């Protein structure tokens, strides 16, 4: 059978689309299995995500979190490190944001609070990644297991802090006090209203722009700095990097600190932008979604932004879906994430041999060459 090597566009665009389609196909089968109509379910989700202005706002608000956690996972992937700890790092990043805002919201103006909160989010997120990073670099402990353990530890730590320290005296719910409104990030609808543009109210806020800036900075850092080059070299081959005089241990630390800092930034969106107080479980799986986003976006900031919007749509559409079809629970979105990670992360090239044959069929007249089986 003649095969045609795939053109670049097929590799970058067609294969990811096929993988998403496969994941949605399996998800549709699951929906059919529990006795609901998958076509109706997907159309409800699509309507919920893009069908009205408020829905679009929510989609982009969720996407903001995923851009941060997705970039976090991607930066680590470039050094062949698998950071599953985004969940805990984002949680602790939110703690940093809350500490700064609770301490200074009565004395400092917004333009001073914002940089302080960003620094706190990044520092706290990086700190939570630092121990697993150190253990990976200097003790050879499996970073996948240690970062997962740190997710569990973060969750227990936050319950302790909220129940015993942050709780408002006399209140029953484990939450901090609400920040002074000077410390709230401007929401999209308030901001646009100043220019006379009227959009529906949604949690979308300034951090979406901050997330896009972070994407550009990550792109510059990974592909246009010496450190980024060193990170990619370590990811390509650790011994080769070592031989080239790169201190691989330091690069592992650096990569994980940046990764943790990016994940911590999700706290800016959630705590400073939306909740305006510290509360339990505000991370809600965003750290894990970051894995799916990074894999689907091929660890490139542009791909990550696009994948984040897709997942934002899934989250928002999933919320509407549960409302419209109560038999399908919100966790369906978690399962779809899993399928997407499976198809675009572990079975990435499953479709390639068939595609090569397909391209071979259409390219008969051109000079086709016999491609050896495999890659």
């Amino acid at each position, binding site marked *: 059978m003649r095969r045609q090597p795939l053109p670049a566009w097929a590799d970058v665009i067609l294969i990811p689309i096929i993988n998403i389609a496969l994941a949605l196909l399996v998800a549709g089968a*699951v929906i059919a299995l*529990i*006795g609901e109509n998958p076509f109706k379910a997907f159309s409800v989700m699509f309507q919920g995500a893009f069908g009205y202005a408020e829905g679009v706002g929510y989609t982009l608000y969720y996407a903001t979190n995923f851009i941060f956690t997705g970039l976090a996972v991607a930066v680590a992937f470039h050094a062949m490190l*698998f950071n*599953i700890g985004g969940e805990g790092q984002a949680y602790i990043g939110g703690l940093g944001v809350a500490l700064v805002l609770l301490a200074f919201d009565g004395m400092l103006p917004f333009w001073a609070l914002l940089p302080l909160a960003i620094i706190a989010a990044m520092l706290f997120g990086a700190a939570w990644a630092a*121990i*697993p990073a150190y*253990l990976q670099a200097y*003790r*050879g*402990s*499996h970073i*996948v*297991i*240690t970062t*997962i*353990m*740190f997710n*569990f*530890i973060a969750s*227990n*730590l936050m*319950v*302790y802090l909220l*129940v*015993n320290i942050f709780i408002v005296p006399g209140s029953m719910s484990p939450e901090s006090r609400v920040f002074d409104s000077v410390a709230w990030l401007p929401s999209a609808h308030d901001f646009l209203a100043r220019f006379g543009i009227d959009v529906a109210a949604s949690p979308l806020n300034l951090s979406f722009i901050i997330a896009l800036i972070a994407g550009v900075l990550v792109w510059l850092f990974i592909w246009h700095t010496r450190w980024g080059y060193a990170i990619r070299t370590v990811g390509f081959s650790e011994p080769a990097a070592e031989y080239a005089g790169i201190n691989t241990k330091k690069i592992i630390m650096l990569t994980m600190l940046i990764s943790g800092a990016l994940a911590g930034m999700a706290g800016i969106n959630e705590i400073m932008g939306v909740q305006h107080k510290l509360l339990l479980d505000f991370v809600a799986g965003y750290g*894990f979604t970051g*894995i*799916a986003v990074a*894999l689907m976006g091929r660890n490139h900031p542009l791909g990550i932004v696009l994948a984040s919007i897709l997942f934002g749509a899934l989250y928002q559409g999933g919320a509407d879906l549960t409302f419209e079809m109560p*038999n*399908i*629970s919100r*966790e*369906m*979105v*978690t*399962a*779809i*994430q*899993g*399928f997407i*990670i*499976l198809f675009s*992360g*572990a*079975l*990435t*090239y*499953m479709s390639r041999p068939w595609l090569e044959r397909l391209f071979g069929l259409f390219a008969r007249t051109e000079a086709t060459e016999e491609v*050896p*089986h*495999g890659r």
Partner: protein
Amino acid sequence: MDVSMYTEIISALSATMRVSTPLILAAMAGIFSERSGIVDISLEGKLLAGAFISAAVAAVTGSAWLGLGAAIVATMLLSLLHGFASITHNGNQVVSGVAINIIVSGMTVVLGIAWFHQSGQTPSLPNTARFMPLHLPGSETIGNIPILGDIYTKILGGHNLLVYVAFLSVALTWWVLFKTRFGLRLRAVGENPNAVDTAGISVAWLRYRAVLIAGILTGIGGTYISIAQNASFIREMSAGQGYIALAAMIFGKWKPVPAMFASLMFGFLDALSIRLQGVEIAGIGQIPVQAIQALPYILTVAILASFAGRAVAPKADGVPYVKER
């Protein structure tokens, strides 16, 4: 030694046996998989899937045995999926494992709500649909002997069948890995798949068999969690035990008996920490509940960070085998 201290120790040791069981089963599963060269992060997801399917089937049929059988089938299917991605398609094994964990975490709740409408829980099981504690033969007579009697009836005895299956699995794992031809080949394929291939033995088929055995063991472990240790499935009830089992496997240097002792140690510390709740400790005061709940995870990190965590994995662990042509 006063009497209450004595009963505390007996009950802590008895609890150790119960808490360690899923860890032991999952650690043996990990050994089979990783000795053949397949990293298996999805132990966690398989425990959770086994717990859900066994509780669901036991709730519908009223039979613990049917629950166990269904759980094993389900976890073997997940193993096949992991094998399909990591053996047939040379995919990233860690990514495949994480995908399976996330799929199971979502699917157990989706199916649980669709089937039972109890916000993701399965109905509470009657004792007839569970694995209940057994009494060892001669418990009445031996039980009367001081100390020895308590050891026999409360620590060694008084557990359900699956606890004994877990300890049996350690012996079986050791025997299969080190005393059979299959075990020799399985270990070889995890160290040097090229040599095994050259000898005319299929690398893929060996690895598929290894991950399927891992599926069986995690299916039993999951069943234990939901219908032996507890009486229903609760969402996320595996709570990281699959990962702790991986740590026990690493701590036990990929060997069955040391991995069993590592699992027992994790189990003992867990049993001990539950008893520390609300206890005043001189100089420190009362330890917060959350600190005690976080203890197994902190210990896992500590053990991976210690010299023991540096143990050398099978050489080809996690490396897809691509035949040279």
